[in-house]
């Protein structure tokens, strides 16, 4: 989903830009303190282009677009009865070490860390939750 607004290059139109960004993010229920930052950043960029790239010429136009791109997917593996071990404290061996020892085993956690961008381990009421995210994994909306 894409939302866009075109304005002429005049500072009086900055208010409309801010309202557009605020309303669009509001519709996606983005929290207002996050919205405030984005409103400011977009305002700064537009003000910059209006002044320095277009010399406040209102016959020139620029366009602001907000794209609701994709969904973020995260993964959990939950262990209701964990042992005391925390995978994230485990010091990974070197692949070359495993190869030179011709060892069968020890590559699993190396793969896990190479694949996932974020891995967290959290305990809730005795349950151990491994929470993971890989940034490139996105759903279509």
């Amino acid at each position, binding site marked *: 989903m894409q939302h866009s607004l075109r304005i002429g290059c005049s*500072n*009086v139109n*900055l*208010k409309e830009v801010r309202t557009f960004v605020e309303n669009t993010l509001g519709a996606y229920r983005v929290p207002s303190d996050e919205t*405030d930052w984005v409103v400011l950043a977009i305002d700064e960029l537009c003000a910059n282009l209006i002044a320095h790239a277009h010399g406040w010429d209102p016959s020139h136009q620029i366009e602001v677009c907000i794209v609701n791109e994709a969904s973020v997917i995260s993964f959990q593996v939950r262990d209701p009865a964990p042992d005391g071990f925390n995978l994230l404290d485990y010091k990974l061996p070197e692949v070359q070490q495993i190869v030179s020892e011709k060892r069968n085993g020890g590559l699993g956690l190396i793969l896990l860390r190479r694949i996932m961008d974020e891995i967290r381990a959290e305990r809730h009421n005795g349950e151990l939750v491994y929470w993971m995210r890989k940034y490139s994994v996105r759903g279509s909306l």
Partner: protein
Amino acid sequence: MEVSISEEGNHSIISLSGDLDASSSISLDNAFTSVLSSQRSVIFVDCTKLDYISSPGIGVFISRLGDCERQGIRLGLFGVSDKILKVFKILGLDQLIIIGKTKQEAELNINATQPSDRM
């Protein structure tokens, strides 16, 4: 944005209402020209009704703080919302200008600080 000026005893007050952005920062700058010429020893800026600030507004405060310092005039803001304070903070400028929740607090802060502290 609407700007109004009031003068009272040793201080001037610039009251701002609405959005201080690239289109309105000139009004704040003009208000400073006016109150600086009246030569009172303190300038307060009442931000109670200020909804928004972007870099041109902050730029006016920075440059006018220079004028105030040269003329030995103290500058204080009050009624600054958290939303506006965090813009100063992200730039590391929340210590630059004396800020109080109320005019009384800004006044106390101004009196607690020597002009020379604020170079």
